C-alpha cells in the first residue's frame, strides 16, 4: 500500500459567512504517519478533516496530497479511506457488500473483489460475517466493517473522524491497539480526529492541538505533554499547575511535584482532597494562598495522606515549562 503525505496550506473555512471554523491552518503530515487532530468540539478539527476528504472546500488556501494540489478534485476522485463516528455503513447491504462497495465503484472484477473483500475482513478479524447486515452486528463489529470498507480500496490516506467515540471504554482501548497495529502493518497515512487527549497521546506519531480554528502546537505526544507551548495546550492535555507569578505564565505537571516532609519543602501546605486513582493518588494541596495538584505514584511503603494532613511541596525548576503569553 502506497501512502501519501498531506499538506494544508493556510486553509481557511467559514460557514454562513460568519463563523470561522478553520482559520489559516498550515499542516504537514508525513507519508505513513499516524497524525491526530486534537481539540475541544468546535475547534475546527473535523472541518479540517472534511476539507482533506473533500466534503468541504476551503474559502482560501490549498490542500495537497502526495505532492499534488487536490483542492479542486471532487470527493469521489480523491482515493481516500474514511471512517466515521456513526460508522455510516450501508444498512441495506450485507457486510461483504459494504466492503465491496469501493472496489465495485472502481470497476474491479468480480473474482478480484471477492478475494480482496475476504482479505480485508480477515485484517479486521471479521471472517465469517460476510452475509450479516450491519444491524445484526455489535458496535465494535460495525466499526471493524467500516475500517475494512475503508482499507480495502488501498487508500493513500485513511481519515478517521472520532471513530472510537461511540464505543465503551474497554472496547475503545482494545480498538486503539488494533487500529494502531493495523496502521503500522499497512503503512498508511492516518489522520485521526479526536477530542480525547489520552487517545491521541496513546496512538499518534504526532499531534496537532487545535483551538478556535487555529493550530496551537504540533509535536510528538511527549513534546506536547512535556513541553506544551501555550496555556491552552498545557491545560487541555492532562492536569497542570499554572503558575502566574512572573511576567510569563509557567506550567508544572502534577507528577513533577513531590510531597515531602515540611522541613525539606519549598512550600508548606495542607491536603485538601486526595483522589485515589488506583496506581496513583492525585492530591489537591493548598499552599501559599493557592491550590496545587500533585500526583504521587504509589510505591507501597508510604500510606496515602488524608485531607487535613500537613505536607511540603518540592519540585525541580527544570521541570517548569514557560508558556507563550
Amino acid at each position, binding site marked *: 500500500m502506497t501512502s501519501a503525505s498531506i499538506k494544508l496550506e493556510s486553509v481557511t473555512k467559514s460557514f454562513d459567512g460568519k463563523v470561522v471554523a478553520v482559520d489559516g491552518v498550515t499542516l504537514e503530515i508525513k507519508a505513513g504517519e499516524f497524525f491526530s487532530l486534537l481539540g475541544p468540539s468546535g475547534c475546527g478539527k473535523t472541518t479540517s478533516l472534511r476539507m482533506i476528504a473533500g466534503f468541504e472546500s476551503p474559502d482560501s488556501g490549498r490542500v495537497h496530497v502526495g505532492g499534488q494540489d487536490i483542492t479542486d478534485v471532487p470527493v*469521489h476522485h480523491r482515493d481516500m479511506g*474514511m471512517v466515521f463516528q456513526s460508522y*455510516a*455503513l*450501508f444498512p441495506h447491504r450485507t457486510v461483504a457488500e459494504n466492503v465491496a462497495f*469501493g472496489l465495485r465503484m472502481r470497476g474491479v472484477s468480480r473474482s478480484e473483489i471477492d478475494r480482496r473483500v475476504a482479505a480485508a475482513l480477515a485484517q479486521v478479524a471479521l471472517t465469517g460475517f460476510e452475509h450479516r447486515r450491519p444491524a445484526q452486528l455489535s458496535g465494535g463489529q460495525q466499526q471493524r466493517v467500516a475500517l475494512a470498507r*475503508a482499507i480495502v480500496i488501498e487508500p493513500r490516506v485513511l481519515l478517521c473522524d472520532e471513530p472510537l467515540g461511540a464505543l465503551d471504554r474497554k472496547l475503545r482501548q482494545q480498538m486503539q491497539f488494533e487500529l494502531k497495529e493495523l496502521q503500522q502493518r499497512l503503512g498508511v497515512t492516518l489522520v485521526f480526529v479526536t477530542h480525547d487527549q489520552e487517545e491521541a497521546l496513546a496512538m499518534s506519531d504526532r499531534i496537532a492541538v487545535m483551538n478556535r480554528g487555529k493550530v496551537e502546537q504540533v509535536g510528538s505526544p511527549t513534546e506536547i505533554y512535556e513541553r506544551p507551548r501555550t496555556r491552552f495546550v498545557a491545560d487541555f492535555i492532562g492536569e497542570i499547575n499554572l503558575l502566574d507569578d512572573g511576567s510569563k505564565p509557567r506550567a508544572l505537571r502534577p507528577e513533577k511535584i513531590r510531597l515531602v516532609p515540611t522541613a525539606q519543602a519549598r512550600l508548606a501546605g495542607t491536603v485538601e482532597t486526595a483522589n485515589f486513582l488506583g496506581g496513583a493518588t492525585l492530591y489537591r494541596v493548598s499552599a501559599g494562598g493557592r491550590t496545587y495538584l500533585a500526583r504521587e505514584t504509589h510505591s507501597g511503603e508510604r500510606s496515602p495522606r488524608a485531607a487535613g494532613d500537613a505536607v511540603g511541596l518540592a519540585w525541580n525548576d527544570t521541570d517548569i515549562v514557560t508558556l507563550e503569553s
Partner: protein
Amino acid sequence: MSAAVNKKPFDLGRTAYLGLNLVLLAFLLVPIAIVLVFALNPTPYISFPPVGVSLRWFVKFFEGGDFMRALWLSLWVAACVLVLSVVIGGACALALARGNLPGRAFLTAFFMSPLMLPAILTGLALFQAYLLAGIGRPVWGLIMAHTLVAVPYVLRTTLAVLHNFDRRIEEAASVLGASPTRVFFEVTLPLIRPGVFAGGVFAFIVSFDQFPVSLFLVVPKGETLPVVLFNYMKFDLDGAIAAASMVSILLALAVVVALERLIGLKAYVKL
C-alpha cells in the same frame, strides 16, 4: 394453568386500554362487516336482518358494463397517479429536505395545501380552470387532478424518512468513489424507497376512492367507479352498491399487500 391466570390481580388500566382498543377496532371494522352483509343479502333492497346468502349482487356488478368500465378507468387512473405522485412527491421531498431553497417552509406548506382545501373546492376550481384553458375534461386532466391531491401524501412520508437519514452514509459512498449519480441510485434511493412507496400506497387509495374532485372532471360514459356508484345510488339502492364497495375494499387491500410483499413497508413502519 387457568387458575394461575385467574389469580392475576385485576388491572384496571390494562383492561381499560384493551377495551378502548376494541371499541376503536369495532368502529373501524363494523361498517365493513355491514357492507359485506348487505352485499351477500339477496333481497332487492337494503334491509336488515339478512334473509340469506347470495352472490347475485356481485354477479350484477361484474356483468354491468358501466360498473366494469368505471372500475377499469379507476384502476388505470389510480395506477398513473401512483407513478406520477411517487416521482413528483419524491423529487419534491428531496429538493425540500436537501436543497438550499429559499422559503422552504413556505414551499412545503404550498405543496401540502391540497390537503387543507376541501376536495370539492379543488374539483370545482380545476373544472373552471380546465374550462378557461379550453382543455375540456380528458382522462389525463383527471389524472393530473388526482395527482395534485395525492402528492402531499408521498411528500409527507418521504420527508419523514429523509428527516431521519444519516447523510454520512452518502458521504461514505462518495469517498469510496461513487459519483453523485451513483450515490443517489446506490444509497439514497434504496434507503428512502420504503417511505416513497408508503406514500404511493396512500396516493393509489386516494385516487381510487376519489369522489369530490372526480365529480367535476368526468364526462358521461367516462366516470370513475365512485362517481358511477353515486349516480347508481340516486336511483337504485340495492346490494350491487355493497358488492362494488366490497370489490373496492379488496382491491385496495390487494395493492397494500402486494406493495408490502414487493418493497417491504415494514421497514418504513420501523423508522
